[in-house]
């Protein structure tokens, strides 16, 4: 029994059954199972990973012929230390998003859940795929329902937001597809299998020119998908409009596709290309994402846009870590990707829960909510502090590791990046204070007259708790994750560096 395949197929099979006319009541109850299976499998495999036998660095490796082997494409599933925590994170965040969606009063809930299940199946596939083609395929499979859900169930400006997201993300995906196909051809391996590609490149590296061009293409393509400045403007708008579960899954999980592609595919296969673009990437990430977007975040008055911008800002740290091209840097990025998945999802979830009580996302029309919803405010403050890198939460380890790695390579940029720690404290705590603390605004008084605000119900609390516990567990005991990441990163990157000696002295 291949658990990876089950994790991918069970949400997809359930959604197919729903299309084929599964009765509504049955479907909704089964949906809980559909969201739970990937999460349970993810956690189970996390526990099994350390003891599992590994082939070429991958555990649970299996391959299926899908009729595309003529093109060097097979559905090869497996997890290495980088994929494993992301796979589990996708399962856990998916469960939280699913639970949150199922308790929401969305119109046409069945169709909404159906699309979410498709997205969930795609997400699990992205991180379980060892084959670059399927890695891309599953990303698209998750992306399309995203557009549809934003367009139909979105909030303000949903049509514009959906269109903008579609254009940006399609262009980004197309560019990265071209890059991946270019690797396929230039490597001479004629295969999309990551392991085979790495071996082929290890025998004979790609030419420097090809490396530079392909990496540039991938950097821009993946950069759009991960909202690298200045290609990020779709993100705050899109997340502002997206329904909460979609924002949770996209910002938390699907967005990590681009970073994951850079780490698993682009950098090991194109070390010289990465070297060539590193300074540019680091500069865009730090000056653009961290500094400029960070300051713009301070000016936001719409809570959901603020969360969206802050998510863009934190991607700057991830890009900075990647640009270090070192074990420490990449390790920090993987840690941060997982942590950010939990914290971004949690913030989007709570932002929506706040909206249910205030009927607005406008920070100027809230205040004093802690009196009515103390548990909600505790969750929100915790999520905010997690996202701004307070120790005790997972995000801290990612940030600090990236800073350590970056100081050696880009000291000046690192100083600016560390300054981002102050910027994020400013907007994070301001938002928390304006929503929850101080006296109630008059506008909020009126809202409360019509609809009194209650604290978090258990159906809202459970998904939030799942995410918060994950953040705390990794925050207190980072070894749960860091050892396996370290093992795989070391293996992949020392192999990559052995091909062409890398000159680290820059900047």
């Amino acid at each position, binding site marked *: 029994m291949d658990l990876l395949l089950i994790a991918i197929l069970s949400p997809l099979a359930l959604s197919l059954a729903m299309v084929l006319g599964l009765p509504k009541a049955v479907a909704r109850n089964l949906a809980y199972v559909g969201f739970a299976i990937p999460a349970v499998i993810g956690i189970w495999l996390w526990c099994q990973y350390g003891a599992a036998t590994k082939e070429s660095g991958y555990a649970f490796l299996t391959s299926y012929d899908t009729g*595309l082997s003529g093109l060097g494409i097979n559905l090869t599933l497996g997890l290495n230390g980088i994929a494993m925590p992301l796979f589990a994170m996708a399962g856990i965040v998916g469960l939280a998003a699913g639970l949150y969606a199922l308790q929401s009063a969305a119109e046409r809930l069945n169709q909404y859940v159906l699309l979410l299940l498709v997205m969930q199946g795609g997400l699990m596939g992205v991180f379980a795929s060892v084959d670059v083609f399927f890695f891309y395929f599953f990303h698209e499979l998750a992306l399309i329902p995203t557009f*549809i859900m934003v367009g139909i169930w979105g909030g303000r400006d949903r049509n514009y937001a959906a269109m903008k997201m579609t254009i940006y993300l399609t262009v980004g995906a197309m560019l990265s597809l071209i890059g991946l196909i270019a690797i396929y051809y230039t490597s001479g391996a004629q295969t999309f299998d990551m392991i085979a590609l790495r071996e082929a490149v290890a025998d004979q590296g790609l030419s420097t020119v090809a490396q530079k061009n392909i990496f540039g293409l991938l950097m821009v393509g993946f950069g759009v998908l991960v909202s690298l400045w200045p290609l990020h*403007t779709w993100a705050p708008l899109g997340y502002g409009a997206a329904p909460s579960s979609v924002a949770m899954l996209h910002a938390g999980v699907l967005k990590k596709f681009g970073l994951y592609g850079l780490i698993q595919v682009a950098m090991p296969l194109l070390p010289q290309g990465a070297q060539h673009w590193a300074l540019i990437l680091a500069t865009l990430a730090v000056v653009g994402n961290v500094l400029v977007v960070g300051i713009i975040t301070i000016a936001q008055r719409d809570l959901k846009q603020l969360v969206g911008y802050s998510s863009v800002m934190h991607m700057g740290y991830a890009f900075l870590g990647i640009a270090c091209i070192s*074990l420490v840097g990449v390790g920090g990025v993987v840690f941060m990707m997982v942590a950010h998945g939990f914290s971004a999802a949690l913030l989007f979830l709570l932002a929506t829960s706040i909206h249910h009580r205030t009927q607005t996302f406008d920070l100027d029309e809230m205040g004093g909510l802690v009196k009515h919803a103390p548990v909600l405010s505790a969750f929100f403050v915790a999520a905010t502090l997690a996202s701004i890198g307070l120790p*005790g939460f997972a995000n801290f380890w990612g940030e600090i590791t990236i*800073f350590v790695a970056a*100081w050696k390579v880009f000291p000046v940029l*690192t100083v600016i990046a560390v300054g981002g720690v102050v910027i994020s404290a400013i907007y994070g705590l301001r938002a928390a204070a304006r929503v929850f*603390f101080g006296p109630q605004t008059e506008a909020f008084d009126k809202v409360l007259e019509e609809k009194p605000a209650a604290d978090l119900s258990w159906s809202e609390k459970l998904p939030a708790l799942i995410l918060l516990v994950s953040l705390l567990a990794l925050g207190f005991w980072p070894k749960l994750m860091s050892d396996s990441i370290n093992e795989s990163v070391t293996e992949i990157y020392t192999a990559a560096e052995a091909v062409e000696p890398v000159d680290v002295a820059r900047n």
Partner: protein
Amino acid sequence: MQPSHLALLVLLSPLGSAAIIALLFRRQGGIASVISVASAAVVAVGAVILAYGGHRFNASIDWFSFGEFTLSFGFKFDDLAALMLAIVGVVGFCVHLFSLGYMNDDENKARYFGGLSVFMFSMIGIVLADNLFMIFVFWELVGFSSYLLINHYCLKQSAADASKKAFIVNRVGDFGFLIGILICYWNYGTVDLNELPAVVAGGAMMSVLAPILLFCGAIGKSAQMPLHVWLPDAMEGPTPVSALIHAATMVAAGIYMLCRIEVLMTADALNIILWIGTITAVYAALCAVVQSDIKKVLAYSTLSQLGYMVAAFGLGSLMVEHDGHEVLLAAGVGAAMFHLTTHAFFKALLFLGSGSVIHGCHHEQNIFKMGGLARKMPLTFVTFTIGVLAIAGLPFLSGFYSKDAILHLAGEKNGLIFGLLVFTAVLTSFYMIRMWRITFLGEPRSDAASHAHESGIAMTAPLVVLAILSIIGGYTTHEGAGLIYGSAFAEIWSQIPHPEGIGVFIKSLAILAVGAGLAFVLYKPSAQDGLATKAPGVFTALTALKESFDAAYNYYVAKIQDRFAMLLNFLEQVLLAGLIIRGLAGVVGLFGLGARALHVGSLHAYVYWFLLGAVLLWGFAGGLF
């Protein structure tokens, strides 16, 4: 039980308390307070056993590692840590006990006691940490607990603002601190406090930047100029919190951290530290003179005393020639830690005493609306008076010894600093006597004061304990009977400079007499501020001095930072989102009609394109075409 396990228990029991309260007893304030006080008792007992039982050890495990970067979780328990742990344990327990009375009627008692436990956990973490990264972890966590507790009355706008300000200002300091740690890591190859001395002794190139940047952390946490602005505002928190966190322990963590990294100091760095400490000491003492809120007087006094400790550290070591060898006579570390210790006792006493006063006067904090409390609250009055005399440096009380140690060191090293510190000492006795007289003497000047009553035993017992410590806390040597310290902290106490001769007493008495005398001349126990009526110019100037920093920061935030943010936001909307996306849409249009249909058509079209592509691909691979 191994000592390292006991230390772990001491560290984790408050964390366990916080977790249990958060999960189970969020609404049962009574149970929560018992759990929290019990954990504080475990800490106090464990700390005393560890400190006095002769246990000194190092222990560490890997917390986390990537490549060559390893971050360890470890304890370095030497005399310095033992002293600090004992202070945190004893003062912490007193404050927990006091809180039982003070917070008895509070609606959110559970949250308060949970916050106190989080604080104890984080503070003990700083004390025990054996490397700079671990100090940083707990450094941030005490900042969080401080945020939580300042924000206790969170429906008040002022409390919400103050907590936010405290956290952000501390983060500004931590920005420098973290960069300092990074430099230290790459420059010396380690951040382990046990390894650093060897690396430095091994002739590593000394970094001048590292100690200065690390000191930034202390500037934030110990509220030195120019990041001192958060501490007076932090008085929005409940008074026991002010006593524990914002007077006795957390704000002193900056000085403790400096003592931890003493080996990294260079002469230039020490000089900068010395001046920042001295300026803070003088400035804050001047500000304290014009405060009318009892807690604000104490807050500025704390700032000033912290400046004293920082200056003491900055004075560095004192060497003498002895038979051709350089012999270490005394060091700033000894003087700073000595004053930190006595200050923890008498400032906690003063804050808790003010809490007792505020509690008795139904939350009146303005000293001009008090008066006549000496008769209404005799026990509070007596203990408070002991605290005032201790901080003012009356001979044979604790503050006398520690302050004179610093003045002696300053006198040997730097005349100008000595003069400024003596001036600060005069101001200290001046503003303390002023507050004491206006609060306790004369007739009650408000209903609240006339109906004041003495507090219960839970509140007065800690006052008595701290008053005793404030009296005997200065006897550190065996000649002074070594009353409470024994020989447990010999490594630190041996570094205290000891002035000799009768001159010390004369100097101290002169300082006290000038300060107290001026206060008696200027202030009567009345509803008016004596200085404002007798010397309005001086009063206005001092008030303006106090407000200048807040005004400057507010101007920066409102007029520069926020406007700049709005400008960037505007540019982003117009330029990036507006022009470039339209441009991009135009380019996409060039792909032709099919592409345009794809991008501006119905979203559902996407699904079909995707499916069509998949079918074509499979068909192609399967050899259909």
